[in-house]
């Protein structure tokens, strides 16, 4: 059988070299046994421990070599070898054509024309109405209390048995600029509905990972100064729109003396909410401990200004489920963006 195979191989191979290579490869073939295929636990764990040790030794060698090479390059005055950047999902995100460009005139025109421009241009002050769904929830009231302290000029109204469409009308009459509905599922706040008024878009977010102020260690107490707003990473057109919607909840004149900052950080379509108080401190950096590695000359104390953060307020995560064009009307309304299951085909595609 083997001889026949060899003959066939000889016929098929175009190059004489190919044939020779094939013969050479045969004796080198070894059977690799995976540690996971050994049935005996003692033997298996011993083999695996050995494997791990080998890998660790190899890794340490690599790091040492890398450090030595960079040190040598620095001493010689050459450029150190390039630092290796780990590959992350954010690094390898799919190229999105909907990303906002800074030179896009249409974007600015669209911003001027959209529903939030009145608030964002400070023509009207934001006025927020917070309410809940009809069901009771254990952490809901505490969450709403904290939301009231985070968002200035927010008012809480009990839900009663009013229909949401009626509540929207009522809020329009009272000149509110947005409504927040905290929706509850299984007695836990589960979703956030952000309705812009008078005919602004409705954003439906799913709320998760809620941590209340009392559960945060060493939390701070927020003051009533207007907070600064930090919106990170809202790059696409949809993200830009959602970012502007969130921005329209807060007044546009932050009080910097209050040293209060609210952050909405978008990463992989999850929006992380954090609320901090910060303080600037001047820290004196003493030499001595890190003498061997630092390049700086000895005997100097360097002064650095550092910002220290103290977290206050709730901590939660939002994920956009749908963005509807008008006010709340799930049955009869038009959707600008809806999450559909067949959008999730790629692990490296994000929409916000």
């Amino acid at each position, binding site marked *: 059988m083997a001889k026949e195979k060899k003959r066939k191989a000889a016929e098929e191979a175009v190059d004489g070299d190919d044939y020779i290579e094939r013969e050479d490869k045969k004796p080198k073939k070894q059977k690799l046994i995976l540690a996971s295929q050994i049935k005996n636990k003692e033997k298996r764990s011993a083999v695996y421990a050995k494997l791990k040790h080998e890998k660790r030794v190899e890794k340490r060698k690599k790091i040492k070599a890398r450090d030595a090479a960079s040190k040598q390059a620095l001493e010689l005055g050459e450029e150190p070898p390039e630092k290796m950047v780990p590959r992350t999902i954010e690094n390898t995100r799919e190229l999105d*054509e*909907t990303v906002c460009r800074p030179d*896009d*005139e*249409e*974007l600015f*025109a*669209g911003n*001027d*024309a959209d529903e939030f421009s009145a608030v964002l241009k400070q023509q009207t002050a934001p006025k927020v109405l917070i309410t809940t769904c009809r069901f009771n929830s254990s952490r809901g009231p505490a969450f709403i209390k904290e939301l009231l302290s985070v968002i200035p000029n927010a008012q809480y109204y009990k839900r009663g048995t009013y229909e949401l469409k009626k509540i929207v009308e009522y809020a329009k009459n009272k000149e509110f600029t947005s409504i927040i509905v905290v929706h509850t599922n299984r007695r836990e706040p589960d979703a956030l509905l952000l309705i812009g008024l008078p005919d602004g878009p409705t954003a439906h977010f799913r709320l998760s990972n809620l941590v209340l102020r009392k559960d945060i260690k060493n939390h701070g107490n927020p003051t009533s100064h207007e907070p600064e707003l930090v919106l990170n990473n809202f790059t696409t*057109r949809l993200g830009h729109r959602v970012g502007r919607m969130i921005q329209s909840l807060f007044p546009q004149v932050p009080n910097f003396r209050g040293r209060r900052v609210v952050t909405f950080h978008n990463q992989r379509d999850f929006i992380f909410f954090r609320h901090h108080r910060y303080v600037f401190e001047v820290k004196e950096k003493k030499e001595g401990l890190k003498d061997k590695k630092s390049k700086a000359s000895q005997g100097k104390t360097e002064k650095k200004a550092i910002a220290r953060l103290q977290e206050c307020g709730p901590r939660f995560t939002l994920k956009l489920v749908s963005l509807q*064009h008008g006010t709340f009307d799930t*049955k*009869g*309304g*038009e*959707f*600008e*963006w*809806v*999450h*559909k299951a*067949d*959008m999730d085909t790629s692990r490296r595609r994000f929409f916000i």
Partner: protein
Amino acid sequence: MPRTSTVESPGCPPLRALTTDSLGLIKVVEVRGKGGGTPQVVETWGPPDASRSVLATSYADRKKDPVLAVARKNGLIEFLNPLKGDVLTTIKASESGSTDQSASANDLLVGLHFFKSKQEDSSSMLGTLLTCTEKGKVCIRSVGRSDAPSDQSIDSPNEWSVTNGGHVLCSSLDPSENYALFGGKHVELNLWDLNSSKKIWAAKPPRPNNLGISIPTWFTASTFLCKDDHRKIVAGTNQHQVRLYDITSQRRAVISIDFRESPIKAVREDTDGHTFYVGTAIGDLASFDMRTGKMVGCYKGKCCGSIRSIAKHPDLPLIASCGLDSYLRIWDTNKRQLLSAVFLKQHLTSVVIDSHFTAQELEGTKPEEPTSQSEVRDQSDQEGNCDEERSRKSKKKRKDAAGKKEKKMKMHDEEQISGIEDPAEKDWIDELPISKRKNHSKKRGEKQLD
């Protein structure tokens, strides 16, 4: 059933589409190159201004003197040359004859239809126009060109009211342009004869169900089903129902289909007279066959925003859909597959396809072509030359499956170019390079081994 056949190379055949959006911009998207090109935005017309947001469009898809009529939110109706983008004339939506100015200020235009076939005197008159406002005021008037002498007598506009209460949301003109259809919120479908300005048919709401509950009337999209037949009407409602009405048989809907759970925002008939396409407010696009009353299939392509408008290419098996997610998508109707999507940055309100676009026009003299064509058009005595030029180029462009041609009605352009012989009908697929059309169409047995 899972999809058993796919379009191998999802590129578009040469086509040109114009889209309008909520900032008043008109974007021209073209696909160049014969073998599966990607669409690109070629031109953008108009300054971005929200008060000039486009409410309704009508495209006179003629070879000679095509006109794109656009109704804007600030009350103006503009007529543009779709090849160059220059404004031919602008008129005000509200006529000077209307008595109550304050009422008409809030009355937005809902429907706009430009009569394609009625064109008596091309030098001074642009054509006739049918407009319909939200409160039901319908007006037919003739539009003169901006450079026409002002002492030309223009026919007095013909106005009437379609409904007392309720809002008109959809209107449609039948292809023979003798009948017009109106429907809306609390407005039942009405069919009017335009020559006599009389209502010849009105729909009746469906019977209340066994609990005695009747659904309020709310038509959001409507169209005539056949090109040569004004008697069959397809309408979509806010309650996710699609209904077929037949004027000759009864006033109630003949067939009523429930489609998913969102309001039907756009309905477009196919050229074969029994298929139509439906787009909903959540982004679902599907095609239905009215002979059986069943859905043929859904178009899956990650469309996540409300579909505002669907346009069918008169010759090729293509549809274009645009909507609030700011994408213009081009689909193949045979395989129900997405051919390509273009991101257009604004909420799109309507799309029209220019069927007289050929790739031949672009080779070499691209910047000169549009100007020379328009020059030719302006001079009325050179109409004959223009026809021949267009016909030479559209000869190669004429591509459709042989089977469909029997069912199709004669197009306008075919009528004009009667004298020229037709070369062998070519499928646009045949123009693709061989490597790309490996597994395409026909039978699976013919698949080539590679």
